[in-house]
């Protein structure tokens, strides 16, 4: 197993960093090789440009601006996302990583002829982990329809391998979290990681 961790939080001392520590120490003890993409610390630019969109369908050029990210995605067989949920979805920084890196030829096989459909391109990804923190409650998030969770565990998963093993954990009501609730959540993350790497 080779894992690519995509980590997104503006604050270095955030609770999300503790989630990241839990994930990496599990991977280390399980002997899993991993790469870490820390979007904020590496000043990732999340805005897909007109130039990138112009060559979006040209598979010989569309990966150039994000070559290292594409190489990481192709190297990995597991993707792990760690981020805070903002407005029920991914932070712009992380959304932009999807926009720019998951291009045709990498994430999608585009239709070649009439009647063809878009086909999945990440079929080498057999494991998917999603760990997040939400300000809203589970109830409100569910009522809204958990768009962030669905974007990854359904939308992204649909372009990964069939029966891609998927784990998800969220700490809801983050603004009223306690030491106890946070450490409970970290235990939950460790448990999910156990299942992901088993």
């Amino acid at each position, binding site marked *: 197993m080779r894992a690519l961790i995509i980590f997104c939080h*503006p*604050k*270095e001392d955030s609770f999300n960093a503790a989630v990241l520590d839990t994930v990496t120490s599990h991977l280390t003890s399980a002997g899993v090789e991993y790469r870490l993409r820390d979007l*904020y610390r590496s000043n990732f630019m*999340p*805005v*897909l*440009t*007109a130039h990138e*969109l*112009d060559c979006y369908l040209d598979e010989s050029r569309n990966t150039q601006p994000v070559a290292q990210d594409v190489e990481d995605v192709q190297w990995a067989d597991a993707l792990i996302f760690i981020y805070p949920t*903002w*407005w*029920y*979805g*991914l*932070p*712009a*920084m992380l*959304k*932009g990583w*999807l*926009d720019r890196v*998951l291009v045709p030829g990498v994430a999608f096989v*585009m*239709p070649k002829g*009439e009647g063809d*459909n*878009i086909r999945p391109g990440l079929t080498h990804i057999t494991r998917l982990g999603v760990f997040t923190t939400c300000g*809203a409650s589970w109830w*409100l998030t569910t*009522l*809204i*329809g*958990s*768009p*962030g969770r*669905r*974007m990854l565990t*359904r*939308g*992204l998963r*649909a372009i990964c391998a069939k029966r891609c093993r998927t784990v998800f954990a969220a700490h809801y*009501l983050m*603004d*009223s979290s306690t030491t106890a609730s946070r450490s409970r959540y970290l235990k939950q993350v460790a448990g999910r990681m156990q299942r992901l790497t088993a």
Partner: protein
Amino acid sequence: MTPAPTVANDPVRALVLAAHPVPDSFNAALHSQVVRTLRGRGWEVDDCDLYAERFDPVMSEADRRGYHDVPDNIAPVKAYVDRLQAADALVLVFPVWNFGYPAILKGFLDRVFLPGVSFRLDEGKVVPNLTRIRRLAAVTTYGGTRLRAALCGDPPRRCVTRAMWHVCRPRTTKYLALYDMNRARDDTRHRFLTHVGDQLRTF
């Protein structure tokens, strides 16, 4: 005796948020259609093209630390907050990328829809705060089919009709989407363009 005039009808003020980088794209055509239609109704349109204005969608560490400090939290994006708060109608024009808003539009929510602007926290409960917005619409295009979107739960539709709706509580909400864009023929696109005009004329 002539009847006294009723309350003067101020023009509706609409904020149009557009999020596509290519000026000759179909999305740009939708954007102009929206602006033209609304101006044609005599509305005052604030046309905000996020790419053209080079909006920075990244919430920085400082932004995040000050996020809950009402009212100082609006300082980094004050001009955008003012434009949002002046609006009676909000129209989003964007392409769906990977089942979500383009990052530049998502970042508008992250950075401008702040506590004290779009919602208030009342004893930990979210209270809608953009209730001046009486009309909410989204005009969008998907690469995938409607079925494919539905299988994932159509996240962008939920983002608009539920998450965004929740903080505005508008009287009218419209979600106008063209699915399966990659295989759409010219006449399909043309029909959608007309449909958007028709829908916004009565919106």
